[in-house]
């Protein structure tokens, strides 16, 4: 491989890593990371440190209605701001991952503050031990209320949490609805979680929401022996989780979901087996699994590049971040969450305990029009610093006026992205038909921006 080809390869793979671990990156950010090195970048991403002072005070000052947020509508400007500006992209990305997997329904909870608490929990624990995360989400007041554990009592257990814990959060079921556990295991788990509930605490503001906290009611807990997954004992919820996380079904379920979220919409059995082994060897250390995943040849290979449909959050914040225009938390940034909602992903309000159906199901005819129009308007913000730099990069690309080179220069400036050969050929054709010297042709920045807008309109751009 020549030096130029290797450099191109490094940039392409780095751009891929940054799309999957975050929301893509600008061209100059990619170069900075390439200079740092791939594995070093992976370590940085996996170990986010505060890159600047925490911005909670800033948000509280500008998003006044979102302080102690009552509803999801009050709360989502806060997450919008973080997604639009974070310098710790994997922290937000892993929060999105768990938000859809350990889904708490905003509609039933109707409590903005509690939903933000949920997301914070995923930021803090999402890259650590799965055991700890599962224990903490099981002690989370929002989750307890959402899945009816409030109504689960000694002698009259409510099975909702026990069932979803096994089916949707850990061991999973196959296509036929069969899991590596039985109905009796569901009942035993439900008994073990009796007495786990929540209580409201006094609100900081008059008429404000009541922050909730975990409460264990010993008198309402079933202290009899339970038979769970072949073991017998006086188990409580923590013991149930300890047993669950040692099972290969759990390791495989989480490995599969991580693969689908970070690598490709089509599972690769061999790679998922490999990740399952790592889960078991490391007692479910999510950071260790992701480290091995991102550093694998499989992840870096062309076969998985652009093989995952972008979620609305990935599309919205990926396009918005290109503009580099967010300085203070204002209306402009707070409404980004609405854009994702128009495309079918209402953040902080997953449609049900299954989270969102991801992959190709994200795209329907209504959402596709929203996706294209939004992304086209973002890359059309010629007054923003980010788009200015992109235009400059294309202009700097040199004197080569062939339409192929022009399209390639635009793709590179947008963060080293690529298109399939079919779409690219049509865009090259467009560049040729409407190139300099043709009647009514655009030139300079206008022509470049138009090509950016066409690129984000392709079906190929719907993938990351």
């Amino acid at each position, binding site marked *: 491989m020549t030096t130029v080809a290797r450099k191109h390869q490094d940039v392409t793979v780095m751009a891929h890593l940054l799309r999957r671990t975050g929301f893509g990156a600008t061209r100059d950010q990619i170069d900075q990371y390439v200079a740092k090195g791939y594995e070093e970048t992976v370590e940085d991403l996996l170990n986010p440190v505060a890159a600047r002072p925490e911005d909670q005070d800033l948000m509280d000052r500008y998003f006044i209605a979102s302080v102690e947020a009552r509803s999801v509508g009050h709360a989502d400007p806060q997450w919008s701001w973080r997604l639009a500006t974070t310098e710790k992209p994997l922290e937000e990305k892993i929060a999105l991952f768990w938000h859809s997997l350990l889904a708490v329904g905003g*509609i039933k909870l109707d409590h903005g503050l509690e939903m933000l608490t949920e997301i914070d929990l995923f930021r803090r624990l999402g890259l650590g031990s799965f055991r700890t995360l599962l224990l903490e989400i099981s002690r989370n007041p929002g989750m307890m209320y959402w899945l009816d554990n409030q109504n689960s009592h000694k002698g009259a257990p409510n099975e909702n949490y026990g069932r979803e814990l096994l089916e949707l959060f850990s061991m999973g079921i196959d296509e036929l609805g069969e899991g590596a556990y039985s109905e009796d295991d569901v009942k035993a788990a439900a008994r073990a979680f009796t007495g786990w509930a929540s209580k409201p605490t006094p609100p900081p503001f008059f008429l404000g929401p009541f922050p909730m906290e975990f409460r264990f009611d010993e008198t309402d807990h079933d202290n009899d022996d339970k038979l769970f997954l072949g073991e017998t004992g006086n188990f409580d919820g923590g013991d149930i989780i300890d047993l669950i996380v040692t099972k290969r079904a759990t390791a495989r379920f989480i490995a599969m979901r991580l693969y689908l979220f970070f690598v490709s919409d089509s599972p690769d059995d061999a790679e998922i087996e490999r990740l399952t082994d790592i889960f078991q060897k490391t007692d479910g250390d999510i950071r260790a699994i992701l480290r091995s995943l991102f550093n694998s040849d499989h992840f870096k290979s062309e076969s998985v590049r652009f093989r995952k449909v972008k979620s609305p959050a990935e599309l919205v914040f990926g396009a918005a971040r290109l503009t580099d225009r967010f300085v203070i938390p204002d209306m402009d940034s707070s409404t980004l969450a609405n854009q994702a909602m128009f495309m079918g992903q209402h953040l902080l309000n997953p*449609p049900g305990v299954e989270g969102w159906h991801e992959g190709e199901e994200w795209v329907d005819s209504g959402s596709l029009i*929203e996706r294209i*129009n939004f992304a086209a308007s973002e890359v059309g913000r010629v007054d923003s610093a980010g788009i200015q730099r992109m235009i400059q990069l294309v202009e700097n690309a040199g004197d080569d006026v062939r339409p192929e080179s022009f399209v390639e220069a635009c793709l590179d400036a947008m963060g080293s992205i690529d298109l399939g050969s079919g*779409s690219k050929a049509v865009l090259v054709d467009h560049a040729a038909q409407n190139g300099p010297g043709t009647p009514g042709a655009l030139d300079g920045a206008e022509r470049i921006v*138009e090509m950016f807008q066409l690129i984000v309109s392709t079906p190929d751009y719907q993938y990351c």
Partner: protein
Amino acid sequence: MANTSNGNGRKQKNLVVIQLSGGNDYLNTLVPYQDGLYYDFRPNMGLKGDDLIPVDDRLAFNSHMGTFKNLFDQDKMAVMMGIGYPEPNRSHFRSMDIWHTAEPFTTSAVGWLGKANSLLDPEGKNPITTVNFGRGLPRALAMQGVSVASVGALETYGLYTGLSGARNRDAMLDTVDRIYQPMAEGGFPSRRILETGRGALDGADLLREAPEAYSSDVEYPEDNPIAQSLKGIAQVMSADLGTRIYYAAHGSFDTHTAELVNHAVLWDQLSAAVQCFTDDLKQLGKSEETVIWMFSEFGRRIADNGAGTDHGSGGAAFVIGDSVKGGLYGEYPKLGLADQLEGDVRFNTDFRQIYATLLEDVLDVESEPVLKKKFDKIDLVRN
């Protein structure tokens, strides 16, 4: 594309949903003006005298509902009194969700009309079987695999319409059109995404052309958003594109304060809008086949709070059209303390009975797959 009759030889009907968002105050919509309890509980918000248009010796419409009183007098409006669902929820969010999914006891990602759409067009052949006026999809219309066009305004619907710059919009659209050509299975981008794009572009073309086919001398007020949405619906109807479900929202009815002013404005706007719309339907020859359904997520508290009313339960809903058997349905809830439900009126008609009626007698689809249960229909739609 329009198929004007179904297997039974009956004329095919269309459903127009008008959602009154925010919780419409039932008691000040249909007022029990001879009931002293009403005035006892509403010392500040009680309507009397010129604020009322009496229906009978018991009930009166709010005076800002002139159009609706006329429709009622012509037997074209069915008023569903005391409508609701068991174990009412007073959160806007959750209660609207219950009306959208027809699931009072569990949460669901499938909307009742999304499901109805999937029954009307099982293979997803027509991307505009349902047209929603407004951004983003109400959950009522949501279902994986069901395409719904969500339109701000017809004239500007489609790609790049709000884009500044885009001088070469036509050339850009030609290029995008060339890209979204479905190809063989197994390629990249996937056939499914390409076909979706094709449907979106074709649907947008159809909808954008609808205003051209439309001609009418009804003048919808410009500064009245619900009137503009209903005008868009009339335009799509006039183009006969096979659309069966139309959706629009009006509000906000969340009148915790300044209720007397705000509630009046909202009903004035709605009266003007529906007057234009029903006149227009007559001109377009669509009166017989169009049924309007108006609902709100809940009614409001019986007792006023001084300046307005708070969230309640139970309410009124309306079914309107030339093929509707007008009149009062259900019972007006009693206001006495013993009859109240935590300060609210008790419902006596489950809204899912109306859904069953609308599904079977308007959209001609089976109601059971949508509602998961058989509900008794209410005989209010003529064939």
